[in-house]
């Protein structure tokens, strides 16, 4: 019986029932449901399949294997931690949206066919937008609308692709990887160049691409995440994009086109992150950059790369969630996350400072932190497969990550010049959530074996050891030279002060002149894009307003016509139908 319950359903149904409960019960359920969901999911055997049929079609609600399992586990953990993190706030809209959203994402991970995937894919889109709207500002409303358009658009592409695929093959099942030998895997829809891809492959590719925030399809992410509520951003950061990574990994593993796309994703957000002052937006850019590593891993598609992608997603959800939690706590207490208005908070928020710093160390992939044991796998896989340029870009991006997430975030929020703000430490529930996440970040970095056991391919067979001399030395060089450069620039007062930021990767990659050009280009792109977007949305809103006016009471379509007009309408319709016979 209990096997008949699809994973994720406990969260969805429980979430929908929440508004009926009194406040205290809601809070308990918010935390208990993800835990119960995890307990239920864990005991499902790895080859568990739950099929159902709608009319004449056989669909697969649940298909458990090692890949879906690891994503299912981390999604549950993320939901659990975020639930604790948001306990201090009693907003039923966010509670329902958060639980159903995470439940939808979990159910989507276990979907065994494209139609089931589509249903939950759209469910995550529709539920998550309420986390943005829950800010209840005019700005968040508009941002939410833009976000919803992109997300639902992604779902529509997915459905269109599924239908085209069904027309071609008569099946909507999600097929397992093909093993090409030499540890190389290939997903059912994988393709190496756009020229050879079929329509179905392309439609689904772009559906996933929107959610995975591919370059040029990415803007919804940086647009929306900083507008959500304190807790909402933490919910959002965990699921949508990682669901897309999972879907890419399952169906597009081994697609060569993903490697340059992923490499671009790791590099370009860095320029934006450098010039950004809103620290949650910096994190959003850095999230985009982290996704790039995973996309590269999927594109390489070897067993090591896929393991790297899965473990990086696992580690990333924890440390990125932790960083968003830290910034959320700052926003909650200080009322702002503008880098230029913060500073010196470590005295007032010592625990938050420590936990956020752990997250920063993890994202920077310091040895003994979780980022190190996962990211190096992808880098090594890239080197093994002779993707030298990609490898170099990833290396550059790693330095960039250290700069904007590892140093910039904690430095501007907690250290730097004292802003003189008098704030309190974060609420206890926030500290507990952050504490658990920080413990996991360190725990995974040291005792990585349990995580490796969850990976799709056997790590022992791949002869992989994270802490060998080469990995550790390379990473330490990268980090220490970055740190040295940071201190050097800091002491010399050379970093551009008007940006309220420092640029430590300059010694590694480019000279100062090049950096200025890059910054200017980044700004120009940003301004151009924003203007274009605002214009476009201006026109779109105009149309929406007009439609609204017409259909509102008082408008020509929102209210019945007088009898005379209605009778004339009948006469006109009669003429039209008569015309049918003469045409």
């Amino acid at each position, binding site marked *: 019986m209990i096997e008949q319950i699809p994973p994720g359903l406990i969260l969805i149904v429980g979430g929908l029932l929440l*508004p*009926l409960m009194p406040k205290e019960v809601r809070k308990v359920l918010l935390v208990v449901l993800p835990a119960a969901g995890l307990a239920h999911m864990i005991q499902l055997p790895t080859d568990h399949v739950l099929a159902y049929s*709608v*009319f004449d079609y056989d669909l697969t609600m649940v298909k458990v294997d090692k890949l879906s399992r690891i994503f299912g586990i981390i999604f549950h953990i993320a939901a659990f931690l975020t639930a604790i993190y948001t306990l201090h706030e009693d907003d*039923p*809209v966010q509670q329902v949206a958060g639980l159903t959203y995470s439940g939808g994402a979990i159910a989507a991970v276990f979907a065994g066919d494209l139609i089931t995937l589509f*249903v939950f894919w759209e469910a995550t889109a*529709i539920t998550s937008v309420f986390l943005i709207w829950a800010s209840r500002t005019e700005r968040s409303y508009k941002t939410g609308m833009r976000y919803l358009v992109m997300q*639902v658009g992604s779902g*529509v592409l997915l*459905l*269109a692709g599924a*239908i085209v695929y069904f027309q071609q093959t008569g099946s909507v099942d999600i097929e397992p990887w093909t093993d090409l030998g030499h540890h190389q895997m290939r997903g059912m829809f994988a393709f190496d160049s756009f020229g050879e891809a079929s329509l179905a492959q392309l439609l689904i590719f772009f559906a996933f691409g929107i959610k995975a925030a591919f370059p040029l399809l990415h803007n919804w992410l940086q647009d929306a995440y900083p507008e959500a509520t304190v807790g909402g951003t933490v919910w959002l950061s965990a699921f949508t994009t990682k669901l897309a990574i999972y879907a890419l990994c399952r169906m597009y593993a081994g697609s060569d086109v993903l490697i340059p796309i992923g490499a671009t994703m790791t590099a370009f957000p860095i320029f934006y992150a450098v010039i950004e002052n809103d620290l949650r937006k910096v994190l959003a850019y850095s999230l985009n950059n982290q996704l790039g590593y995973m996309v590269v891993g999927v594109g390489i598609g070897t067993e090591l790369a896929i393991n790297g992608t899965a473990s990086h997603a696992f580690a990333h959800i924890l440390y990125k969630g932790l960083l968003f939690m830290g910034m959320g706590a700052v926003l909650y207490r200080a009322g702002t996350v503008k880098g230029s208005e913060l500073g010196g908070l470590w005295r007032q928020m010592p625990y938050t400072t420590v936990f956020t710093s752990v997250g920063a160390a993890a994202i920077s992939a310091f040895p003994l932190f979780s980022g190190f044991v996962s990211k190096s796998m992808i880098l090594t896989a890239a080197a093994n497969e002779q993707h030298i340029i990609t490898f170099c870009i990833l290396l550059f991006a790693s330095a960039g990550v250290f700069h904007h997430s590892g140093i910039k975030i904690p430095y501007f929020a907690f250290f730097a010049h004292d802003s003189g703000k008098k704030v309190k430490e974060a609420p206890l529930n926030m500290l507990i959530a952050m504490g658990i996440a920080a413990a996991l970040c360190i725990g995974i970095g040291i005792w990585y074996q349990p995580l490796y056991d969850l990976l799709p391919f056997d790590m022992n067979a791949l002869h992989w050891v994270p802490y060998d001399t080469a990995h550790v030395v390379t990473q330490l060089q990268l980090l220490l030279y970055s740190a040295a450069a940071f201190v050097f620039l800091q002491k010399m007062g050379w970093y551009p002060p008007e940006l309220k930021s420092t640029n430590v990767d300059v010694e590694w990659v480019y000279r100062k002149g090049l950096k200025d050009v890059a910054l200017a280009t980044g700004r120009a792109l940003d301004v151009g894009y924003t203007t274009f977007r605002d214009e476009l949305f201006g026109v779109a809103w105009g149309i929406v307003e007009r*439609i*609204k006016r*017409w*259909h*509102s*009471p008082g*408008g020509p*379509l*929102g*209210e*019945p*016509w007088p*009898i005379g*007009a*209605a*009778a004339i*309408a*009948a006469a006109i*319709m*009669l003429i*039209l*139908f*008569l015309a*049918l*016979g*003469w*045409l």
Partner: protein
Amino acid sequence: MEAPTPHEVEVVHRTLTDHLPILQVIIPLLAAPLCVLLRERALVRGMAIGVAWTCLAISVTLLQHVMEHGVISYAVGGWDAPFGIEYRIDLLNAYILVVVSAIAAVVFPFGRGGEGLALNPARVHLFYAALLLCLCGLLGMAATGDAFNIFVFLEISSLASYSLIALGRGRRALRAAYSYLVMGTIGGTFFLIGIGLLYQTTGTLNIVDLHDRLQPVIGSRTVVVAFAFLVVGLGIKLALFPLHQWLPNAYTHAPAKISAFLAATATKVGFYVLLRVLFTIFGATFVFTTLRLHNLLLPMSLAAMFVGSLAAIAQTDIKRLLAYSSIAQIGYMTLGVSMGNVDGLAGGIVHLFNHAMMKGGLFLVVACVVLRTGSAKIDDMAGLGRKMPLTMAAFVVGGLSLIGVPATVGFVSKWYLVKGALERGWEPVALLILLSSLLAVIYVWRVLEVIYFRERPEGAKEVGEVDATMLIPTWILIGAAVFFGLRAELTSQVALDTARMLLGTGL
């Protein structure tokens, strides 16, 4: 014993069972004047409920019989067709009879006596008399196989519904009933003109006979004109955009219980007659190959779907919101017809049944709300989620079904419609169906947000849950919307068979 010769079958007179097709119509017709004579409130109410349940039992028996033995033909007064009036029950109208009488059986007992109707207690018996006449007209339209007889019952049901709508509170209800009367009469007249033209051409009023005799003259001007009058006349009855102008006011100002009954049955029977006219009288070939009706019906249906849903989003009154949503849902039904293939048509037919359940259920929820709060304004529903949890939960489920969420009936209809559109090669239409569902998400959510996430304002009237006489009928309809969503094969099989029958032989 020897098998009787065919001649003997004609003469051997019938048992009560053989009279079921006419009993179905006669019982409510006779009960209506009885109501006026009895006057006693409880008695009248009990009788009306009894009649509705009897009709349900009869229609279920008929459906079973039709499914096992095929078409039932009953000659009224022993006068055989085409000279006498024939009652002809096939799969399609057996199904409609079940829908109409089932809705009646659930809605009639709703609420105690005149509760929630805001009626003068002294006039409750008149209310039930009109209600029974309306039921009689609707069942008659569905059961009869005679075109003129359809018109007669159409007028009976229409006149009864004008008076029922006029029972609503205030002058607005009178005005709404009056507009409906004017539009309904135009529709009825158009229908009658169409029948007259057909009679002039063929000399018969029997539907099956009409089909046969029309074939030689099918392309003639008279037939085309008759077709246009019939379709536009019915278009008014079933509130097809832009002929829907009577509907929003009528549903808004009628007592909510009446809105529930009419929304779930009246437009559905209109849709049934449209199917009869299109497929049984004229035949699919003429309609879709010669006239290419879909060129007109498709844009009208799409416009109905979008205008109805968008207008529903903008409304501030919950009854009006549901009324505009009905216009959109009727658009789905005619959309299925315009596809002209089995899946699309089955989608339209199954949506007829499905929409009857969910819209009936939702209007009953509104009836509960109006009874408790005295208002149908959406803003006045703030915080009702805590005060009336069971009623509001019914609204949630009904709303999900309107959207077309899987495991509800709304999903089943849309599934077939999308399938039909794709089969027809109308991919953009399939996309539009999905898009219009998104609009439903918006208007349903608007209400849910007020119900659950907005606090009840200070000093608002203290309200509580309604009693079982209201909750049970509401939940029967809403529960059915889920039950038939999970056991979709029960309804979709009938709909598919019916669609095949309508398209295959033209009969």
